[in-house]
């Protein structure tokens, strides 16, 4: 009886792992569930790609004057939002955005301080996934640089005061394995929508 239960459990786990693996391998459809919010419409330049922790990626996006673009970013949960995204206007070499995937411990996510963490919109009182509206006054290209940070498991460590006594607070600390951080694979997506710019006139 015990042996049979173990076999059943093992088969169920294998099945679940297989499903997860399949889900992860389908990064091309990672953005499928996203819907453009009117009046924006889906831009087919949107892309999701298979990415690895500890690696850097670039997405090059031409923008046309006369359109307004909304950019959103999505990452597989396996990355724990441990991501940095930097966007540069290739016409001017100006950095437009340079944000982490999540805010530091103790800080509250809000509009403009995170690229991946949902935040509470004070006007609508709803959780919003970060978005960035960009209006090119002249046609240009954006270089979107993604750094997927090394993957770590975390442990909660007690915060000690100057006398070495526990304060009651804890902080997350990465567990660094002997052979270096584990490489994990997941999806990263750049979701682009656009609409005619309000300032365009011909």
């Amino acid at each position: 009886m015990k042996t049979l239960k173990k076999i059943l459990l093992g088969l169920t786990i294998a099945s679940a792992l297989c499903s997860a693996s399949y889900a992860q391998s389908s990064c091309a459809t990672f953005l499928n569930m996203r819907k453009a919010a009117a009046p924006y419409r889906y831009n087919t330049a949107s892309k999701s790609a298979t990415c690895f922790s500890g690696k850097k990626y670039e997405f090059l996006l031409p923008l046309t004057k006369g359109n307004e673009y909304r950019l959103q970013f999505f990452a597989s949960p396996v990355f724990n939002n441990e991501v940095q995204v930097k966007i540069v206007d290739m016409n001017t070499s100006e950095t437009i955005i340079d944000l982490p995937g999540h805010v530091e411990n103790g800080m509250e996510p809000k509009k403009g301080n995170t690229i991946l963490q949902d935040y509470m919109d004070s006007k609508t009182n709803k959780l919003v996934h970060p978005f960035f509206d960009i209006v090119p006054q002249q046609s240009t290209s954006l270089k979107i640089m993604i750094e997927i940070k090394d993957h770590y498991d975390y442990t909660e460590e007690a915060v000690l005061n100057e006398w070495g006594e526990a304060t009651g607070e804890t902080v997350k600390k990465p567990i660094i394995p002997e052979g270096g951080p584990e490489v994990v694979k997941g999806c990263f997506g750049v979701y682009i929508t656009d609409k005619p710019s309000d300032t365009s006139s011909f």
Partner: protein
Amino acid sequence: MKLISKSLVVASAATLLTIQACNSGNQQTGQTTQTPTEETTSDGFDEIEQTTFYLLPSPEDIFAFSADKMKYSSALLNSFDKSETYINTKMQEINFGVYVADMAYAAAFGEYKDAAKYLQTIKGMSGKIGLESIFTQALANRIDQFIENKDSLKEIANDTYFDIKKSLESNNRNSTIAQISAGGWVECMYIITNSIEKYAENDPNIQHIADEKNVFTSLMQYLGQMTDKPGISETLNDLKPIAEAYSKLQMVDAEPSKNTKTTNTEGAILIGGNKKIEITEDNFNLLKARIAQVRQQLTDNK
């Protein structure tokens, strides 16, 4: 005991089916010539070689800018009769892109009959490049249902392009995407440049042609990543005359914007304000001629 046996059989069957689905999940139905860009590392992960991704607009995105400033002309379209003459994979993929652009152009102007003809042409060619699974009965029903609605026709054209791209990306057929993009871009620019009767300095369509230099540069770099794939080096060579014409266009200071703010009233970030790509009359005429030359070479199967 009987209940335990039944449970074991059901769990085993479910697991075997799931594992089978996992193994076949990434295979495309129909004939394919899969050219994966993945290689397996020693730890068992599939590692993608490419770390720069070029995000290219669809033909519908390109035409969306110009459609309300142009007149429709079916004479500009590549004859669908030629589709049977494209024998090798490179010509099939390039001209698949050409016909996708033709379909998008017709859809942008609400020309149902032409759009439907080109959709049939694309469907006919899809089998040759392993994309026939896109053209389902559901898509055919959708087209029949929205015959008279221009906006829906545009949406169908865009959704079809999206499905094509998604299917190819799922199967890591990046070289096919690149060839289709090249054919589609050349056809879009051929149509747009031949829809402009006369050069005018502040014509937004002319400036759009100049601005497409950014897209073309991305396209060439995208192709340049895959020169080891069949047909890609040839395509890069084919596009060289256009690259030479675009190289003559210079970045100049744009008229200073009266708006000195970095965000607009709705919080959108304003960028690229002080530089633009200049296009003179000579530049335009040279580009128009080179694009026509390349388009003829790609579509005449010579």
